[in-house]
């Protein structure tokens, strides 16, 4: 069995979702009530791969909401309690979705392996970042040409280049795709220099310097709330892959030759009888999902019960090859810009 740990996009959304799921009494509670609400296993699903096997899974809502990010201990407890529940339910492999893996990483939860009487077995969890990175890289490869951008000569900016997903995307684009030039953007200098050395290239720039030069921008960092992007300063056409969480780039820029695509989203080849992705506000909730969730499914399909994506900067090209091949084999495709848009561009 695979597991997915997710959460609502906001406190308001969480209350609406709870009502829809029949958890009326929690829905009425204020944020303090939610801070004390235990994780819930809200849904079981069954998925059949076009390659044959059928797997079972469960969706766990951690009852975390982004409004709790300022409460360190609450956020930590939500993540660890949801992980404990997944393990106690006997789930082989659980993906940490949304802010879950970010909290795990940033708050250094590796040192909290014992939750009450349970010792968390890390091999039962995956961040799903390998699949997310592969999907984002493929979204660049698939969609830039459709907009008339020639990747061989294009400048591709990766914002959040030194993160787990960002560095993997850089590796793939530089060694597999072969893009014209990589523009590396991140907050801290030393990791940027290390990445540049590893890649044997790429230009380190500030965000303000990189944006006007880039034909493609891959966002794998959260957008600062105050960030303003002047659309007229961007190249046209410009492909922007919104791989951050939450996905709000299209509210900042879009239109006039600037194409924003939700990054790290995949679509399964047939409907899945679940309600969870409706809550995540996917365009096609019966088929679309975060690539990190799909990674748990893929690992279950492949009977690969290990913490495939774990820690920072451990994503190799070989691992991306493995998960990418599994993704295709089991009927997942990456989200692309709409076909009508591709035709009009052509």
């Amino acid at each position, binding site marked *: 069995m695979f597991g997915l740990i997710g959460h609502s996009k906001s406190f308001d959304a969480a209350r609406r979702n709870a009502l829809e*799921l*029949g*958890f*009326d*009494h*929690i829905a*009425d*509670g204020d944020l*303090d*009530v939610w*801070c*004390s*609400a*235990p*994780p*819930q*296993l*809200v849904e079981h699903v069954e998925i059949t791969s076009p390659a044959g096997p059928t797997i079972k899974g469960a969706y766990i809502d951690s009852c975390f909401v982004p409004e709790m*990010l300022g409460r*360190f*201990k*609450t956020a930590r*407890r939500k993540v660890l*309690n949801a992980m404990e*529940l997944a393990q*106690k339910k006997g789930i082989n492999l659980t993906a940490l*979705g*949304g*802010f879950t*893996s*970010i*909290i795990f990483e*940033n*708050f*250094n939860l590796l040192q909290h392996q014992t939750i*009450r*009487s349970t010792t968390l077995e890390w091999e039962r969890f995956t*961040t*799903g*970042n390998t699949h*997310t990175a592969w999907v984002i890289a493929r979204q660049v490869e698939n969609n830039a040409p459709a907009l008339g951008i020639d990747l061989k000569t294009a400048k591709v900016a990766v914002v*959040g280049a030194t*993160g787990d*997903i*960002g560095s993997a995307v850089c590796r793939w684009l530089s060694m597999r795709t072969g893009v014209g030039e990589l523009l590396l953007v991140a907050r801290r200098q030393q990791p940027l220099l290390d990445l540049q050395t590893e890649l044997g290239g790429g230009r380190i720039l500030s965000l303000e310097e990189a944006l006007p030069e880039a034909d493609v921008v891959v966002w*794998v*960092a*959260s957008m*600062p709330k105050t960030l303003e992007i002047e659309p007229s300063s961007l190249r046209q056409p410009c492909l922007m892959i919104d*791989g*951050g*969480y939450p996905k709000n780039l299209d509210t900042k820029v879009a239109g006039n030759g600037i194409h924003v695509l939700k990054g*790290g989203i995949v679509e399964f080849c047939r409907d899945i009888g679940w309600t969870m992705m409706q809550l995540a506000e996917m365009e096609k909730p019966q088929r679309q999902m*975060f690539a*990190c969730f799909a990674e748990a499914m893929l690992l279950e399909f492949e009977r690969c019960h290990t913490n495939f994506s774990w820690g920072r900067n451990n994503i190799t090209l070989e691992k991306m090859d493995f998960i990418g091949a599994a993704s295709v084999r089991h009927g997942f495709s990456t989200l692309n810009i709409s076909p009508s848009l591709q035709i009009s561009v052509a």
Partner: protein
Amino acid sequence: MTTLNAPEATAVEGMDALPDFTTDAYKDAYSRINAIVIEGEIEAHDNYISLGTLIPEHKDELAKLARMEMKHAKGFTSCGRNLGVQADMPFAKDFFGPLHGNFQTALEEGKVVTCLLIQALLIEAFAISAYHIYIPVSDPFARKITEGVVKDEYLHLNYGQEWLKANFEASKEELFQANKANLPLIRSMLEQVASDAAVLHMEKEDLIEDFLIAYQEALDEIGFTSREKARMAAAALAG
């Protein structure tokens, strides 16, 4: 998934620091918390003995559980002594008063399901969660004792769980009723103890969530569905 503009882990590590066990403020709060724990164990002893009259076929097993509770009470008494604290037992008697009253009423009426819910589910889940949260912030002496106790308490929770599971259909309605009548008491007990617990570096939010996790796990094991569990637990959340 991706990244977050969040405080670095190093900046928040200090929040798990141990309290100073020697201050007057700590000892004052401990005098009440320690008393609650001791009183809770003594009441548990009495309750298991009483349950033996309602479930005569399990009398010996229940007497064994009762003996363990008395041993725990002694262990926790020594924790107070070790810190030079006199447990405030009258406070603890009042603290357990309403729940004690409900147990006694159910006992007189021969309501075994209600008695089990109060003692073997609610009180045990309350104890387990509180002990788990106390262990990381306890003094070394108390830590050792509490770690031993918490293992036993799972056995007690398990006893009630198994009995109710075996008699689930017949018990369901009474469990709903008993939950409705008694879970709010646990909530107000948590509220009452919150400020003293905070002095011991145990936070109310943690106590409530951990209690609900233990309680919901028990309800899950007994046979309730997710929605039924959430509905039952909501009685504790809604303040």
